[in-house]
């Protein structure tokens, strides 16, 4: 992918500092460590101003895409988030979720194209909450922000995305959420065909980006397609297609910037393994799936369990070993204060077999 310079044709303005942070519903539940890591990396490692506002809510995007939240409602919810941002004294809105990022862009653009919808939303917001809509100066996804600061992170790196045993760069599959740039190609770094937002991080931190045939394909998340059990066959089939396509490249890990993609590329590996016995990792187990915050966190020397990597379906230990990350295997399922948080049953995609401290204790 090094030959590709076309991403430079797609540039958007990304604010350098003073961010208003909007969280993701899925990530708070499935990757809570990633959102915390994002805040820690920005505030502590990079020293930029980022505001995590307890007042903001879900963008209701999942409900909207599943036909249970009407357009007027989601526009008003979005308007409220923007109003909260302005009240907090910020104007750079950053979203942790790709679905939300798509929603924010779509709503702003709808207001632009159909000014009467903006007027109506202002009225609803005022009536419902007494707040005033102030549109953000910039909108970015949090992966854009990490991309923007990738060189600064590289300068502070404790390690690079390199196999410490072989000295070879790690082979990384990057997966971009559909609503990052497929709705508005210009809203994404690198456009929709060859997004560079994650590839840029991987390259800056020493890894090799894998360009495999189904790289651009959707993970199959699709809202209705996983919410309704009868439809999940088509959801998993899409991840299946991607995994089949990437496996010959023997990737060391997958990194995604979308909450749903990260979840499904990880968890569908479990389901596929249990359904037809197929695993995709070179070691006969699963391929670890990381968030970009986890990738950045490992590069910066964060503890994997602090990053919440024990929440993954596919064990990350083989990757940690390749990276030379020192970690305490016994602490994997110990939460705050050493409290045992429970552990998943063994599965075909997993590989950690050692007896753990908590198992001895029990």
């Amino acid at each position, binding site marked *: 992918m090094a030959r590709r310079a076309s991403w430079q044709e797609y540039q958007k303005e990304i604010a350098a500092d003073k961010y208003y942070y909007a969280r993701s519903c899925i990530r708070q539940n499935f990757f809570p460590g990633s959102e915390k890591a994002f805040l820690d990396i920005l505030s502590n490692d990079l020293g930029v101003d980022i505001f995590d506002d307890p007042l903001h809510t879900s963008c209701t995007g999942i409900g909207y895409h599943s036909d249970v939240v009407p357009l007027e409602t989601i526009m008003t919810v979005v308007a409220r988030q923007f109003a909260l941002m302005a009240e907090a004294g910020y104007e750079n809105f950053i979203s942790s979720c790709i679905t939300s990022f798509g929603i924010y862009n779509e709503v702003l653009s709808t207001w632009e194209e159909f000014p009467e919808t903006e007027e109506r939303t202002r009225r609803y917001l005022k009536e419902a909450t007494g707040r005033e809509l102030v549109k953000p100066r910039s909108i970015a996804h949090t992966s854009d922000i990490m991309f923007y600061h990738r060189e600064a992170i590289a300068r502070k790196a404790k390690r690079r995305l390199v196999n410490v045993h072989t000295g070879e760069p790690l082979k990384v599959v990057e997966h971009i959420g559909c609503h990052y740039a497929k709705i508005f190609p210009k809203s994404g770094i690198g456009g929709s065909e060859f997004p560079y937002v994650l590839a840029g991080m991987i390259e800056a931190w020493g890894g090799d980006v894998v360009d495999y045939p189904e790289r651009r394909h959707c993970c199959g998340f699709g809202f209705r397609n996983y919410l309704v*059990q*009868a*439809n*999940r*066959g*088509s959801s*998993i*089939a899409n991840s*299946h*297609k991607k995994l089949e396509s990437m496996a010959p490249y023997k990737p060391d890990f997958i990194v995604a910037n979308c909450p749903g993609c990260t979840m499904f590329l990880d968890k569908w590996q479990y*389901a*596929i*393994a*249990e*359904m*037809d*016995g197929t695993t995709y990792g070179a070691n006969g187990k699963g391929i670890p799936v990381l968030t970009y915050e986890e990738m950045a966190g490992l590069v910066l020397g964060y503890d994997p369990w602090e990053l919440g990597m024990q929440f993954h379906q596919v064990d990350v230990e083989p990757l940690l070993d390749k990276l030379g990350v020192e970690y305490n295997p016994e602490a994997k399922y110990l939460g705050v204060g050493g409290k045992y948080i429970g552990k998943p049953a063994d599965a*075909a995609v997993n590989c950690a077999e050692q007896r753990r401290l908590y198992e001895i204790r029990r």
Partner: protein
Amino acid sequence: MRNINFGYGISRPRVINMDNNDLRKSNAIIAEMPELQACIGCGSCTASCTAGNLTDFNFRKLHTSVRRGEYKGAYEELSKCMLCGKCRLVCPRGINTRGLVMLIKRKLGDF
């Protein structure tokens, strides 16, 4: 691998996968009737088809699928043809469509 009932499976793609399809039978059909490749997909055969007006038999689609190496069910489907020969009269490319019905059945057998 355990027997877990997920309530769903991995849906099979309905894509025509030309990397997996075996084109030998298709090539044999085309070799015997090269003018079949001259089909321009006009649909006259299907429009005039006695059987196609009563069932979902679609001759244009069927022989196109066969040419792509999709043979499954073709023989059985072709049994719907009443061999009236109207399709051959209307074909603007002069393809012996009636003969083609028999040719495909003969080459494929009950695939």
